[in-house]
């Protein structure tokens, strides 16, 4: 496309001036091309629209869809049937086609959201085949012959039949869809999609309503792709079932794979390659498919990220600290867990756990590995349902609620094995933590979001790293980033799962300082930790678990003297090093 200018500048040019100039190029090229070129050009634009649709599902949300042609078909058949049978005007069929695809998106999306990603792929593939076979078998859809006699589009009393006119129509459609998806890419939803793609469990735990977010990806992707259906029907004057095969789904998927997942400029490149290359290869007709297949393998082996990979947008964080957050009016007991039990099969992991944390307190849970500490955390946060017991958060019962609802009620957590969104930047990771406070999806980032991101990064000392990818951070910084993400939702209670694991003495001291500052905000901190010295020096109260049962509760001084605790966990003083608690790496 463009000569390789200096990378940073090229990026800027593309981000702010690339699209208008691309449209100008497309218009100029449209004047120069003959009818054949214009027809190929219009097909490229149709595939680019399909690509923008699947880019939402696969590129942003990471849900592999191998049956995307189904939505193309649904759009084409809905519009075609309405035009042929009911003699609707093309422009009226357009919203109907989009609506039908949205319904189909819900139908296929809703029951399959729980599935692991590979099964999702096969289910979407099956769905695509179901739609294709159904339209071939039904009488109303014209069987294997499809629909014929679809009238051309009329615009201002003029029929669009010439290839040049149709090319302009397709270009106009593309520009509208591009603008819509560009707006979508700036919403909070787009960030939520990328978080879900990176780690949906972590996203759910910090407050992203993952099921709704995934379903929206299906529905919005289907609606976008469906726009191409009526356009295709109007171009050909027919709807032919053989144009919605698995191979079509594959071609649409390849548009984003070749271009680069999540990248809109990449979609355009991908559409050009997918549509134009077979035309170029027409001379060697019989080797075309083979050539295409080998090209595909080569691209994946040599450039798996695509020709024009997605680059994260830099955050424009406010220069100065924003207004201080409204103080969380926190007093009294914030977390009250009673009678919490959980068993797996016959094994009781947690039995009858009671845990209380008041505003500004640090409460610790200690115990040997396998004592049930993390299981207890998972029950409290809703990640796994408890078998019995109550979890009351700031006066509200949250037991058995979805993790994102528990997070929204004011409970944030970190994970023992750090779970960040590695492909996102540091600032974007913290932004996802904001969903606990504000779950709205179809809005751009608010000033409050950016203020909170800046404040939390500053709080843990990572402001300078804001635009770096989270995957590239050093271990200690990753721990701090996870805490910053948890703080972004202004939690009332913060659950930290072994935050000092693997930290050196300096980092541990810094961590103790950080925990003290968090509790000074009025947040209740619940800590799972093996570092006894750290626990004893900062905790207000300590709960000791062994084999799922609570064997002692009390202030640190009492716990250190408790004979049962010494026997089960702390060990007798003549141990070689009382601070060195054996830790099994996981």
């Amino acid at each position, binding site marked *: 496309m463009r000569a390789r200018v200096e990378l940073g500048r090229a990026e800027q040019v593309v981000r702010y001036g690339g699209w208008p100039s691309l449209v100008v190029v497309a218009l100029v090229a449209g004047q120069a091309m003959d009818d054949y070129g214009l027809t190929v050009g219009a097909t490229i634009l149709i595939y680019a629209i399909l690509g923008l649709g699947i880019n939402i599902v696969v590129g942003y949300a990471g849900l*592999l869809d191998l049956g995307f042609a189904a939505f193309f078909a649904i759009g084409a058949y809905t519009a075609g049937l309405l035009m042929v049978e009911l003699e609707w005007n093309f422009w009226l069929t357009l919203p109907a086609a989009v609506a039908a695809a949205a319904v189909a998106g819900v139908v*296929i999306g809703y*029951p*399959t959201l*729980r*599935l*692991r*990603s*590979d*099964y999702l*792929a*096969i*289910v979407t*593939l*099956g*769905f695509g*085949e*179901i739609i294709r*076979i*159904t339209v*071939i*078998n039904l009488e109303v859809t014209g069987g294997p012959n499809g629909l014929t006699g679809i009238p051309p589009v009329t615009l201002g009393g003029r029929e669009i039949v010439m290839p040049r006119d149709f090319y302009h129509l397709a270009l106009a459609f593309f520009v509208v869809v591009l603008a819509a998806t560009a707006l979508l890419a700036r919403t909070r939803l787009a960030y939520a999609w990328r978080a879900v793609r990176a*780690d949906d*469990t972590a996203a759910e735990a910090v407050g992203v309503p993952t099921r709704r977010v995934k379903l929206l990806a299906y529905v919005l992707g289907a609606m976008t792709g469906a726009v191409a259906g009526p356009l295709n029907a109007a171009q050909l004057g027919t709807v032919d079932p053989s144009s919605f095969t*698995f191979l079509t789904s*594959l071609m649409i*998927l390849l548009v984003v*794979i070749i271009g680069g*997942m999540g990248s809109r400029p990449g979609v355009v490149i991908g559409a050009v390659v997918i549509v134009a290359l077979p035309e170029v290869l027409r001379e060697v007709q*019989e*080797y075309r*498919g*083979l050539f*295409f*297949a*080998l090209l*595909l*393998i080569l691209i*994946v*082996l040599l450039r*798996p990220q695509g020709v024009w990979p997605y680059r994260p947008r830099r955050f424009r964080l406010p220069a100065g600290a924003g207004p201080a957050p409204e103080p969380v009016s926190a007093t009294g007991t914030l977390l009250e867990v009673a009678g919490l039990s959980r068993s797996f099969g016959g094994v009781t992991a947690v039995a009858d756990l009671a845990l209380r944390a008041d505003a500004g307190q640090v409460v610790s849970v200690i115990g040997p590995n396998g004592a049930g500490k993390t299981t207890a955390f998972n029950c409290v946060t809703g990640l796994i349902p408890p078998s019995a017991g109550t979890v009351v958060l700031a006066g509200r019962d949250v037991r058995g609620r979805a993790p994102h609802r528990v997070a929204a009620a004011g409970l944030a957590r970190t994970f023992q094995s750090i*779970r960040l969104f590695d492909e996102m930047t540091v600032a974007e990771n913290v932004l996802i933590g904001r969903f606990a406070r504000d779950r709205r999806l179809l809005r751009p980032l608010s000033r409050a979001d950016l203020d909170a991101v800046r404040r939390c990064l500053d709080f843990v000392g990572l402001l300078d790293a804001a635009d770096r990818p989270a995957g590239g951070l050093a271990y200690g910084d990753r721990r701090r980033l996870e805490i910053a993400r948890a703080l972004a939702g202004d939690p009332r209670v913060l659950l930290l799962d072994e935050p000092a694991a693997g930290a050196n003495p300096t980092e541990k001291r810094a961590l103790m300082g950080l925990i003290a500052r968090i509790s000074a905000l009025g947040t209740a901190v619940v800590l799972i930790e093996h570092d006894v010295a750290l626990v004893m020096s900062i905790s207000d109260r300590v709960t000791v678990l062994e084999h799922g049962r609570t064997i002692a509760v009390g202030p640190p001084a009492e716990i250190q003297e408790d004979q049962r605790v010494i026997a089960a966990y702390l060990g007798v003083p003549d141990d070689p090093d009382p601070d060195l608690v054996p830790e099994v790496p996981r």
Partner: protein
Amino acid sequence: MSEFVQYLVNGLTIGAFLALIALGYSMIYGVVRLINFAHGDVFMIGAFAGFGTLTTLGVTGGTALPAIVAAVAVGALTTGVVGTGIARAAYVPLLASPRLALLIAAIGVSLALQEGVKVLTDARFKSYPNTLDGGQILSGSVRVTWGQLALVVLSVALMAGLWLFVTRTMTGTAMRALAMDRDAARLQGVNVERLILVTFFVGSLLAGAAGVMYGLYYTQISFGMGFLIGLRAFTAAVLGGIGNLPGTMVAGVAIGLVQSFSAGYVSSRWTDVIIFGLLIAVLAFRPTGLFGERVVERA
């Protein structure tokens, strides 16, 4: 009633091939977490290799048991080598890449195999010599041929062999360990790359044998035959619970029965709608398949 029994017999025969193909999907998914899209095409390669063997031997018809055994053996070994070669060239280099890259590579390999065979065969159907014509065990209202029995017996023997391999040998045990945790297996001294190749070899071997059996049974083969059968077999692997070999065998036979009964009582035009509809319905209620899977999804 006799209709029902006839569909049952046909379904069991089809199920015998499908289970063999499904096992390959399941094993390969277990060790590399890849839906090996090319697996259906490996099956197709097996059918052509068996065809080549029979025509080279000059078999034209009748009951030529040694020739049949030779064809199955050559078909299976060919696909074993082809499958291992594919894994070595296209999949192993991508083991550390995102999973999607691996899947796309598999789709590319699938297309390449289909298109390659299409060019080589001029996109024509090939007809197997009618070597399974050993007469009928039962005739009359329900027909059972010796050929059908032979195919089912062969399939059961291969599955039993696989079961012994997976449970009784060191390599099979390592394979199961690999399916559960690749890093832990590596730390215990398992040569992961080699074992992955062995898995591809065994899985492709079964698919190749199934390919020859398909050719013997249906007699018509073509470059595109692997796609739909591959999809049905993968459906069986998912329904059986991926990584769960006994579950996969049962589900393979079950899909064969569904195919036969839906073709008999509804219409063969709706067979795949019914199979995929069943897949979606089962997964909506049991996300890990009917019998539960035996693999752990890595984050």
